[in-house]
């Protein structure tokens, strides 16, 4: 297990999580969330859980993002506040 890689990945996770919550553009937030899922997939792989990594990459980064995008395109793109 590479210690430095893990540190970078975990910091990126925190950064993307904050990014999702700070972004007012929902399309951008969905894309950042997809990046979060992809990073999470690599973290699962680092934790020796390839099954979860595959699921996270396929469902979290792939299918869920598309479903979010569809929902955004059917509703509004900007968050009211």
């Amino acid at each position, binding site marked *: 297990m590479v210690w430095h890689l893990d540190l970078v990945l975990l910091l990126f996770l925190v950064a993307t999580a904050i990014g999702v919550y700070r972004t007012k553009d929902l399309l951008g937030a969905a894309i950042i969330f997809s990046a979060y899922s992809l990073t999470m997939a690599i973290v699962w792989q680092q934790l020796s859980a*390839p*099954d979860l990594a*595959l699921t996270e990459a*396929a469902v979290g980064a792939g299918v869920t993002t*598309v479903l979010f995008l569809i929902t955004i*395109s059917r509703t509004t793109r900007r968050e009211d506040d």
Partner: protein
Amino acid sequence: MNKKVQNYFVLIVMLLCWAVFLFAVAEMPLMGDPGNITNTHVVPRYLEKGVEEGGAPNIVTGIILNYRGYDTSGEVTVIFTALIGVLAVLKRENIKKDKSLVEISPVKTSVIVTTVVKFLTPLIILFAIYMILHGDVSPGGGFQGGAITGGSIIAFTLTFGLLATMRKFRLSIRIPLESSAVLAFIASGLVAMFFGLPFLTFLIPGFGFHTQELIRHALFIIIEIGIGVATGIIFASIFAAMGKVSKE
């Protein structure tokens, strides 16, 4: 209460929660410590006897399908229930009348995207089939393979439109396949009951070692294929129901 006071109140509550969670985390056992409770009870048993009791060379599959068979059958039902929930709110697509967002979008799909999707879809589906069939030997299995299939079907629909894709996956084909995971799991679980064993037993005694292995392998493959096909089709169906644009 005005907004500023309210915000400070929320901040204080959040900080308190954070402190409580921090103390709780400090109490947790260290990761990878061999003296952990989780590492002294079931894990050694799974690792030592998982292959002979669970029956699969891949211990994770053995645990999922054998030790925790009831849990997995519940999860399989949950995916099916999610589809029912989506279809209860949104209607099924009608390939003659409905269009997808791609077809009504003013932006034309780039030729790079079309070519890449056209080239990659068969390869992705081939990889998914490999993953489903090798579920009891290597990481992955029915759900992962099915999710990859569903993702590639969604990518294809996003590029070539709902009509072109769902003509290949007609409703008459999809409706029986959506329930295949639950049916395959229950059918494989019931096989043991004909021999007087509990539900969801995959290692059936009374045969030679090789026959027993063969039966176990066949049952696992049936379950994996059922879960894989159903997951892929369910993802495609949910996507089709959500992504359709009905003509007013």
